[in-house]
């Protein structure tokens, strides 16, 4: 017997951070979450799964288009025709969702209730599925505590939307402990909520399958569902199956590590890295944020006109992969300069070595020093002065720009430090004196 375990579909939630540019593969990005879900259905049919488990967050909380729900039902109908049932619990997003409120559930779709844990027995497969939906967006109680005892003689599955004991970047909803889950005595815990695939335990299996389709740079790497094979009442195999249609892959290149000492060499290093990433994604569209670290001279040249070089890198991506690669955004960073090697002075020399004019006495050096001090300012009081400079901009920007983990918060000291860094490089490059940094 096989079943498929997926979660966090976030159907119709848009991919974030993909700035449109000339030649960007706009059409291939469209409807990515839907197509990933279609892939999930295809997988169930191809593997002749006994049932599909969805561990919450099928819809985005603030998404209002009922068409999304209908799409969901239309796809599940394909499973229904093949006699494959679906079991789901609502996650925090589903609890808040406008879409789920009116969605009629077909007979082959089983939603487990939110008042108390429910158990569904699948006689034909010898399986008991226990689960409880989120009643509200923020469930702070440990739902797993009240899950029933395992049904003897059956393969027991716990279906739960939870952060377990806290996961970085995820709200701490329905917290529970790994030990508590193990102690329940189930055979398989089908979890949802965390977007990164993670296997918390193998006896019993406690699995986060991760989300179905990465939606931002932070959700990089293969995404999909977990295919579980059960033989004689025990888990025989747990496989991760990639179902994503757009794959986020960070392209971090340190040009100095490959000996890139000119802009051309640095760009070539990016080309090589992009080609490698593209080749590894099996024909999927790749969304790649690029970070190019380079030595001072190259870095200065890049920062003198970041827009131009960003376009250049996009052109390289087009050459390398055609419409198979979307350069999400480009960052130019300064590679850490090598430590000065200790002096090997000819001992027979009579020259007395005294320090020459120190860099920081140079006017540029003083500028750099002042900016270092500004960045290092622990309470950020000085940085606060910069906020005023950007106040008009902040007023005009849509609120969404500052939302999310990678939101642009212009009053955030870390952001300001980064901006000061970049402004410094820009000014130095214009003054033709980036080397002092």
């Amino acid at each position, binding site marked *: 017997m096989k079943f498929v375990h997926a979660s966090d579909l976030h159907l*119709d939630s848009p991919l974030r951070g993909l700035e449109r540019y000339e030649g960007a593969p706009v059409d291939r990005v469209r409807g990515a979450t839907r197509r990933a879900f279609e892939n999930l259905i295809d997988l169930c049919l191809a593997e002749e799964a006994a049932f599909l488990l969805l561990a919450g967050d099928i819809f985005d909380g603030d998404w*209002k288009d009922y068409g999304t729900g209908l799409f969901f039902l239309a796809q599940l109908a394909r499973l229904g025709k093949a006699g494959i049932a679906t079991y789901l619990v609502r996650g925090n997003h589903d609890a808040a969702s406008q879409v789920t409120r009116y969605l009629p559930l077909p007979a082959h779709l089983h939603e487990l209730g939110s008042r108390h844990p429910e158990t569904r027995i699948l006689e034909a497969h010898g399986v008991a599925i226990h689960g409880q939906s989120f009643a509200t967006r923020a469930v702070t109680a440990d739902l797993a505590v009240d899950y029933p005892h395992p049904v003897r003689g059956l393969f027991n599955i716990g279906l739960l939307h939870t952060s377990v004991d806290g996961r970085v970047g995820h709200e701490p909803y329905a917290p529970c402990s790994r030990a508590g889950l193990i102690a329940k005595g189930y055979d398989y815990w089908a979890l949802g909520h965390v977007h990164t695939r993670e296997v918390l335990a193998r006896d019993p299996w406690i699995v986060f399958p991760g989300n179905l389709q990465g939606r931002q740079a932070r959700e990089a790497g293969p995404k999909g569902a977990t295919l579980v094979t059960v033989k004689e009442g025990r888990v025989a195999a747990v496989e991760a199956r990639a179902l994503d249609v757009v794959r986020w892959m960070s392209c971090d290149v340190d040009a100095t590590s490959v000996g890139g000492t000119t802009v051309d060499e640095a760009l070539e290093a990016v080309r090589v890295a992009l080609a490698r990433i593209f080749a590894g994604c099996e024909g999927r569209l790749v969304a790649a944020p690029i970070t190019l670290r380079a030595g001072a001279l190259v870095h200065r040249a890049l920062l003198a006109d970041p827009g131009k070089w960003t376009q250049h890198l996009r052109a390289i991506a087009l050459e390398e992969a055609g419409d198979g690669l979307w350069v999400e955004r480009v960052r130019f960073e300064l590679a850490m300069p090598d430590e000065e090697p200790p002096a090997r002075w000819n001992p027979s020399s009579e020259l007395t070595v005294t320090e020459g004019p120190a860099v920081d006495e140079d006017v*540029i050096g003083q500028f750099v020093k002042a900016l270092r001090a500004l960045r290092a300012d622990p309470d950020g009081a000085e940085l606060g002065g910069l906020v005023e400079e950007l106040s008009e901009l902040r007023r005009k920007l849509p609120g969404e720009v500052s939302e999310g983990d990678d939101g642009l918060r212009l009053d955030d000291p870390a952001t300001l430090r980064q901006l000061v860094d970049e402004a410094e490089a820009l000014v130095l490059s214009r003054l033709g004196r980036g080397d002092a940094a």
Partner: protein
Amino acid sequence: MFAGDGIPTGTLNVVYGANEAGKSTALRAVAGLLFGIPTHTTDAHQHQMSDLRVGAVLEATDGSRVELVRRKGKKNTLLDPEGNVLDEGLLRRICGHATEETFRALFGLDHESLRAGAEALLAGQGHVGESLFEAALGGGRGIHRVLQELEGEADALFTAKGHKRKLHDAIQAYTEARTEMRLRARSGEAWQTQRRALEEAKAGHERLAEGLRARKRALHRLERIRRLLPLVARRARVLERIEALGDPVLLPADAGKSREGALTERQLAASDLARLAGELAEISARRDALSVPAWLDDPAVARLIDLQDRLGAHRKAAQDRPGLLGALAAHEAELDALATRLRGGRTAHDSPRLALTGLGIAARARVRSLSLLEAALVQRGALARRALDDLELRHRAMAGELEAMPPVEDTGPLLRLLRRVEREGDLEAHLETVEKEQARLDAELERRLTSLGLDGTRASDDWSKPERLLALSPPPAESVDRFASELQTLAVREERLVEELAALHRKQRGVDRKWAELARAGEVPSLATVAQARTARADAWARLIGAGAGADADADADADPASRPAERGPHWSNRIAAFEESVLRADQAADRLLREADRVASAASLEVDRREIARLIADAGSQREDLGRRGGAANLGWKALWSGLGVKPGSADDMRAWLRRFGEASELARRLEGVSLEATRRRDQVRRARVELTSAVRDLPGLVIDPAMSLIALCERAAGAAQARETAASRRAALLRETVALAEERARATRESADAEAALAAWRSSWAEAIAPLGLASGASTAEAEAVLELTAALGRKQEESAEIKRRLQGIDRDAAQFQESVRGLVAVLTPDLAGQPEADAAEIILQRHREGMPARQTRAEIDLDLQRRRQAQRAAESAHASAEDRLGALMRAARVMDLPGLEQAERRSAESSELQHKLRESEDQLVGLADGLTLEAALRDVAGASAEDLDDQIDLLREEIEELDRDAQRANQSIGSVGAGLRLLEDPGGAAAADAAEVAQGHLARIRELAIEYARRRLGVHLLAREIERYREQHQGPVLERASALLARLTLDRYVGLRADFDDGDRPILRCIRADLSKVSVDGLSDGTRDQLYLALRLATLERQSESTGEPLPLILDDILIHFDDERAGAALAVLAAHARGTQVILFTHHARIVDLAERTISPGSLRISRLEG
């Protein structure tokens, strides 16, 4: 610090070098030493790239030293004098970790940087902070420009009040996408409402449809009843009539017709019977009247037809018989004659005719063919023998010729040689052409050398050989161009200077003329005159006061001294007069000054002009001297350029033309060289060919070689000899081939002759065999055999003809016997009266009698046939009459009547009953057909009691109701359609317009983010840089401005005495220069030169301040920064630099001798070191 024996510390080091002297190279060498030699250096003109080295001794302030060598390369390029690799770190630390760029910006200054720095001061409008920062930054980057650029870029992205900037566009696009997303989102609630509405609409529609169906059913029934009503009434009427008719006998429908048919038939039969009885009686009487002989009815009469034919044949045969007997006798006689000829005397009857005529056709044909063959065989044998004789003769002739032929010789090598020589063409003609070309080129070269103006004798001795000319190296065109350009520039400048001087002198004369005119109009009053008059007045007043005090101590001090002149004595009066006079004069001077203010101004202006013109004339003079010096040097260089060639150079244009001609001569020389080589090669070829040919033909007999013979003639001779040998050899070969062929032919001819003989012998044997049956001897000729054969054939033919005649005679006799027999038989049967008469006559009579009796017999037969037919007709009529009677009887029995009238009445009643029954059936069928499937009974029940009027009313009512319901149902249906369409739109699972819009919105959001970052980066860049500039100003303004003030005063020879930080209209701190009269001038009010000096002052002040705060100072390297300073200020600048050099090493590169002169004049020898770079 960079000290060696050449460049001492503590002094101003001026390095002088003309153009190309290596000044720039020396500058690059310093940078190369400190920071490495660039990969693509241009300095490898004397040494290989890999051999490039820069060496130096570094000395620290405390006097410690180290010697370094920098080699060209990529790694480990810093070495000690022994070639050991040194660490770069120490050098980096000495240079304060500055890169080459920093070093150049801070410690190097050339003229362009100085100009750029001054321009940047102007661009920043003398902003104090920016000016100081600019000077500290060095490199002339233009801090103001950088700030403006960044601000401009930021503004292009976003401004608080703008709305067409990139960021605004992106925000607007984002907002639009969000709106689109909200518009496209389909709400679940709406879906539910829509679904409910659809269900309700469907239910309503169903209710209406049901009502409609019921009413339509009722309408249908009423309409049926209305339709059936008249049919039911008609049926009732038919039934009434059937009732009235009672129960009649039903007859077949054709009973009437049957009755009428039987009556007609009975009548016709009766009339036929009457007519036939009469006819039969009349015909029988006609038969009885005919007479016919009885024997004509005998069957034997049939044989008379055959008898007629046989009688004719019998008479004809009896006539032919005697002729045939005669012919037979004649044939027998001819046969005997032929046999006699064949066998000499024997008769045909005695000889066995068959033996002769039986000789088979095959045997005769064989004799014939053998006879023909004989001639052919005899001819074949004769031909074969003649051919053999011919061949023998030819063989003997050929053998004779072969024996007479000379032996064979090999001409191959000679022919190959000739072919090779031919391939090379007419060698001697080629040689002649080349030698002519050589002579022509030689003469041409000679002419050109002469025209180049080179000495003729030398030309013949030294230049005649092209290689010598080619060995000469004339100056490169670039050098000539350079000199030409320099000389041209100098000439132009000289010309301009002369014009300038002339103009100045004209101006000077003009000014002098104006001055003289002014002077002619009287002395020009001046401030000095007024001041002098006023001084005189004051003196007079003082004297007056002094005198008054002594003479009249009691006098009222307030009283007017002039009011009492007499009381003071004569001195007093004189003094008063003198005072009055001085007052008058002072007033007059002042008045004149006022009155003649124009003249005063003109005079002052003329004076200024005069001085300025004088200065300009002096300047121009010194420039002209300078030009003269440079012109001299250039001329020397020009001559030196040509000295190696021993040519006196003319003008640059002439020498360019000369160079061109020289180039052409060189080209000619190269061609001559080539042609000479070609001539030598050709001569060698001719000689070699001649030697080879001579030795090849030497041994050929009969060939005489004349040594003076041309190569072509020699070739022709040799070729002729070779050709003759070649012809003989080929003739011999042909003969040999023919001999062999002849031998083969002879063998073939011999075989043919033998074969012919054998064939003839074989023929003879066959011939003997073939003619034996003819009774001829074996030696008989073919002609004899032919004759025998012909006779035999004629005998055979006659025998055949004789046999045929005998067969015909036998046939005639047999036919006559048979005829007689037959006649006798007929006579016995038919006409016994003719027995005993000759058969032929009897036959004749019988036939006559038959012809006469036959017509009567024919007529009787025809009457018999007619009688028979009429009796048959009589029987048929009797039968028809009886049948008609029977049918009438049967009809009456069926109608149960006794007579014909009764029968007719019964027929009428039966027909009426049938028709009524038919109508009843028809009407009931119609009823059932229109009763929509009901049975007749059900339909009659349904209709029973209905009235047409009631039905019509009910039907109208129902129709109205149906129409109304129909409209309602249509409306309900439309409603279902529209609600359903709305629901389908909501339910389209593929529709993702909202999601697509969300995707688009995210794209715009990402762009907004990137643009915001770009904007923030620039905005903060401007802010932070401005902040730093301000900080720097606050920190350094005081000391740097103080020091720069002092330096500016010295650099401008106290024209400007200092610098102040002031404020402009916008309260920005700006720099102002203070003139000697303490007036203030802003940076844009300064002349270009003064601005250069201001920037230099700021740079030097900044450098001094920087080196105060650091340890080991770096040297200051200056590259011709003073070229735009006038002599006085350049001298001042040199003094300032010399003073600066006391703190650090200062190296000034220049290619202007003027600067060196000035330095020598201005700076004490102890503080100056001049180095000259030799080119």
